[in-house]
């Protein structure tokens, strides 16, 4: 198909009722497809390592797979494998995995960075942790671990007890690092972070400035790389993994993250969740979203106005209110560990009426409060002057970088997993997906503010449902075997809409009670990649604003 042809209504390989026709896709790819695997979420096409660009290009151009959601790398006893999880922004239920095996003694595979910009960092991570090398990659170096690290920690023969011995001269002084700036220009290299209040954690930005303007920014990650994937791989499905998701996106988004794991593991092991538990999940997850967005808004205001001003304090005060509700429900303020595979840990707190009343009160309080936030932020001229038309992220670029969540919706991309690939109880409830096509810092902040309103709406409806639920049908957990051992070699990749965007989990089971590979697709990691586009050419304070509007959380970026 040539590029000039108008695109048909349906993509190649799409059936009229919105399913993927894998046979037609295989036909489209012809002899590129060596073999077909079936994963729980989609089919996987096995291809040769030197056909990656060609295959992904066809799939992107002709079959409409415009979202490279994740790249998973793993090592088997006989081979390395990279899996490209493809989706469509129009319909994320249409998925396809492209599986690229490479030899064990020569793990070289073609890089997909020329087709999808987002592949850049994903492949760097795969190289860093697993050790696959990507040919023609624009910038293949370690991303999470220090440059001097020896070995690839998620490869099979890695010995963790081996001390890392680094000659001092290799461990360069951070201030001397990387100042390869063209000589003729009058530029300055400056490190922002890793200890800096504006970086929202331990992010390090290597920036090259021309006067006050940013000409180059290179985020340096890994200052909070806590081996989350390793931790999950050595924990059991039933109970041990669940506390970790709370600590990925730790801005009170715990239940949203737990749900990501629950969703992946439940569809891997084919576990049903009672409807009643789904409603509780939906309600508590939205509370988490409110808490998370409040902090995002508060710290964004902090970045813009530059001091611990009213908005930050208001946001924290309101967060205390949500956290009290969550604490009543789960017993913890931040690390809830409330979901279980098969349901939730326990029922609503007694007396129920009192709890419902508190939640209701909060839900009516939120819209009033939002007026205040809008007065202080979006209707404030000082704020507008700082954020309107800065940090522009056009929708095509956002898609190329795999941006999701409020970042994508602030660029006018109508994409929300809760609606497009429904889980929990979302499809039964009345709420709207908020988008704004300003594509700037303002839009992203605005989208978050309005999402708080929608979340309150969802919570209110959940409370109505829960209140009327007959007493003898309040089933919070379904039955599952004591030790959960999903079938060997079953693979699943599932995503949910977390606070920052699409949070995906890939699990491969090997027949034991622990996953053989556990990969986290972090929304903040993908969103952060677009900082370069948003910041270059802008002034330094606008870069800080852009970073704040991305609302990254380093626990999730570095994992």
């Amino acid at each position, binding site marked *: 198909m040539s590029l000039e042809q108008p695109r048909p209504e349906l993509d190649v390989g799409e059936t009229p009722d919105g399913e993927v026709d894998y046979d037609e896709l295989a036909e489209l790819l012809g002899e590129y497809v060596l073999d077909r695997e079936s994963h729980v979420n989609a089919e996987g096409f096995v291809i040769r390592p030197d056909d990656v660009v060609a295959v992904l290009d066809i799939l992107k151009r002709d079959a409409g797979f415009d979202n490279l959601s994740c790249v998973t790398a793993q090592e088997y006893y006989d081979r390395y494998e990279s899996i490209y999880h493809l989706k469509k922004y129009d319909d994320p239920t249409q998925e396809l995995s492209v599986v690229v095996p490479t030899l064990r003694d020569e793990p070289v595979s073609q890089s997909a960075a020329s087709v999808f910009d987002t592949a850049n960092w994903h492949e760097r991570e795969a190289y860093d942790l697993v050790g696959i090398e990507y040919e023609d990659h624009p910038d293949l170096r370690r991303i999470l*671990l*220090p440059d001097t*690290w020896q070995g690839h*920690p998620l490869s099979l023969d*890695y010995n*963790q*007890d*081996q*001390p*890392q*011995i*680094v*000659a*001092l*001269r290799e*461990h360069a002084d*951070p201030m001397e690092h990387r100042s390869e700036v063209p000589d003729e220009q009058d530029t300055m290299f400056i490190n922002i972070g*890793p*200890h*800096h*209040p504006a970086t*929202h*954690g*331990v992010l390090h930005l290597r920036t090259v400035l021309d006067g006050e303007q940013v000409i180059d920014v290179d985020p340096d990650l*890994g*200052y*909070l*790389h*806590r*081996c*989350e994937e*390793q*931790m999950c791989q*050595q924990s059991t499905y039933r109970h041990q993994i669940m*506390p*970790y998701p*709370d*600590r990925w996106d*730790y*801005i*009170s988004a715990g239940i949203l993250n737990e749900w990501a794991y629950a969703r992946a593991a439940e569809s891997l092991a084919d576990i049903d969740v009672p409807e009643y538990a789904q409603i509780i999940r939906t309600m508590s997850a939205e509370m988490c979203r409110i808490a998370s967005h409040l*902090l995002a808004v508060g710290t964004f205001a902090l970045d813009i106005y530059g001091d*611990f001003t009213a908005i*930050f*304090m208001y946001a*924290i*005060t309101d*967060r*205390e209110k949500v956290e009290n509700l969550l604490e009543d429900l789960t017993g913890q*303020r*931040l*690390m809830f560990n409330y979901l279980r595979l098969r349901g939730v840990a326990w029922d609503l707190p007694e007396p129920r009426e009192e709890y419902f009343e508190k939640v209701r009160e909060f839900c009516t309080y939120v819209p009033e409060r939002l007026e205040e936030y809008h007065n202080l932020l979006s209707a404030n001229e000082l704020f507008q002057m700082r954020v309107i038309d800065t940090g522009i992220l056009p929708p095509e670029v956002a898609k190329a970088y795999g941006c999701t969540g409020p970042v994508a919706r602030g660029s006018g991309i109508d994409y929300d997993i809760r609606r497009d690939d429904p889980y929990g109880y979302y499809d039964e409830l009345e709420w709207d997906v908020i988008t704004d096509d300003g594509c700037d810092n303002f839009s992203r902040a605005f989208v978050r503010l309005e999402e708080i309103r929608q979340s309150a709406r969802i919570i209110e409806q959940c409370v109505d449902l829960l209140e009327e639920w007959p007493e003898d049908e309040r089933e919070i957990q379904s039955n599952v075997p004591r030790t959960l051992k999903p079938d060997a070699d079953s693979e699943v990749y599932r995503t949910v809409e977390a606070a920052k965007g699409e949070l995906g989990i890939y699990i491969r089971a090997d027949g034991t009670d622990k996953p053989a590979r556990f990969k986290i697709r972090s929304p903040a990691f993908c969103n952060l990649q677009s900082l370069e586009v948003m910041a270059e050419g802008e002034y330094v304070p606008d870069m800080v604003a852009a970073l704040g509007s991305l609302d990254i959380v*380093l*626990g999730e970026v570095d994992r």
Partner: protein
Amino acid sequence: MSKETQLHDTLEQAQSTQDARMGPGVDDRFNSKLRQAFGASPFILTKFDAFMNWVRGNSMFILLFGIACCSIEMMHTYAAKHDLDRFGAGVPRASPRQADVIIVPGTIVSKFGPRMQRVYDQMPEPKFVVSMGSCTISGGPFQEGYNVVKGVEEIIPVDIHVPGCPPRPEALVYGVLKLQEQIQAGESAPVTVKPYELEQFGDLERDELVQELASEIDEDDLVMRYNWAESP
């Protein structure tokens, strides 16, 4: 009612002490409970060290330092509801050169360890460290991670440990109060670095000493050894 009288009494009393002290015609704006307590002779006799410790404990400038999940609870501790400032310890300073307490709120990994040490080194003496959360005690939930430092004490000395994952704001407040007590009691004297390794060169002049030491270093062999797997 009784309170008012009390206040009134106090004022009156104060007035009288003041009059006794200064006589008529002097500006009467300076008046306080403290004055009253001092009576006619506004002097305190104390040991300088005790005074300094008291001052130090009551005006702690904490470094604005966020690492991981615990820093969210730390922010809540600073902010409206818990308001650490009530205890004379809540002004976060963004620059380490203006801070004398560092709360370490989160997991330290190999890449961040040296940076944290650098920040710590930049703080002026005397300085105090509060480690917040299990991660800073032992590595916490991530203890077995290949990249995780098993507690801040591997890198910098710690005065107060606040356990929890994350500790509640109340717990952090308690920890900070304990630190204040400790400082006020003078238990943490300013750190004096005793270069005991250098004693063998005791008879050398300073410059010669540096020369001498520098010649002992073989630059090619200098290594940093990250061996956190073996640490307790």
